[in-house]
């Protein structure tokens, strides 16, 4: 085996998998809460985020329930003219596979089995906004020893 491969061996088999969140965000919703739970059978290695929406007038926040981590945040100390921070514009976060606009995480993130992630949508389009988020990556299956 290539020595580099040996060095990187981590005893996991990777199975392509996608977690999908579908939601019709009500018109003018503010931080509309949605939950995504990682299945209990395996940890998930998150590599890509893809998103489709009806209107781009939609903001998104993502939080990890187990740790309280905010993946999308702002700490700008002087932000001109904006009201409460409701997240980043969904088109900045990710686009569709059709447009080859899925966002690749530079370094994948391990989402532990059973962990819950909250996605909070805020709509300013004034109409119901049909959203689909796809977290694409790999399930991590431990390899049998020996």
């Amino acid at each position, binding site marked *: 085996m290539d020595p580099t*491969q040996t*060095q*990187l*061996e*981590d005893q*996991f088999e*990777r199975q392509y998998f996608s977690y999908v969140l579908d939601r019709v965000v009500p018109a003018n919703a503010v931080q509309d809460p949605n939950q995504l739970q990682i299945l209990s059978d395996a940890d998930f*290695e998150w590599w890509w985020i893809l*998103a489709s*929406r009806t209107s*781009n007038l939609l903001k998104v926040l993502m939080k990890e329930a187990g*740790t309280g*981590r905010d*993946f*999308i*945040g*702002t*700490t*700008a*100390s*002087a*932000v*001109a*003219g*904006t009201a409460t*921070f409701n*997240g*980043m*514009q*969904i*088109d*900045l*976060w*990710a*686009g*569709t596979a059709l*447009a*080859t*606009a*899925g*966002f*690749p*995480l*530079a*370094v*994948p*993130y*391990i989402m532990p089995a059973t962990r819950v992630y909250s996605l909070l949508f805020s709509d300013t389009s004034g109409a119901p906004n049909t959203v689909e988020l796809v977290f694409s990556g790999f399930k991590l299956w431990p390899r049998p020893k020996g």
Partner: protein
Amino acid sequence: MAGSKALSLAYTLRNPLARMLPLQREQMQVYRLGEKHPPVGSMIDHSPQWETVPFVLGPLKTSQARVNLQRDFTLLAILSTASQIAAGGFRAQFFDVKKNLRLADRGVQKANLAGSMGGGGLGGAVFLREPYQFDLPDSQILVIVQNLESVNNAIEIVFYGQVLRFNQPFAGADEFPGGPVSSWPVTGGAGK
């Protein structure tokens, strides 16, 4: 400069997953797609972070924002959007406050800074060829934005990077700005 070697990365932070960029769709090609193994090196034990800087600027107005970064923020990509782009949208310039460094000679127009992912076009995030690390304690990005439009402009700039998990334990290490706590990676982990 005499003696410099263009491809030397001896003192440059490197993304172990990055590879040579092609001339097109670089944001899609920056990684080893389908890499079988998890990351190693300096960005292990970190997690993704999208640091968002929104502005609503009046006609031809300029504003600035300081972004307080989480520990060990490592900048990997920039995204931006503006509601008005007829006259170029905006100019933005970034500074590493703690290191007293400019990250651009002067403000860069939106079209040359970064785009957005969605909207039907090709993905527009601009990935750094090699990461930029804000590794000093209490690091900040100073963002100065000038609206180039003669109408109000809703501008959003996003810094995508990796941060050290705030709950990552490092026994016996010190926390900035002082005092011993468990999570500053002085004694190991995080590739330090």
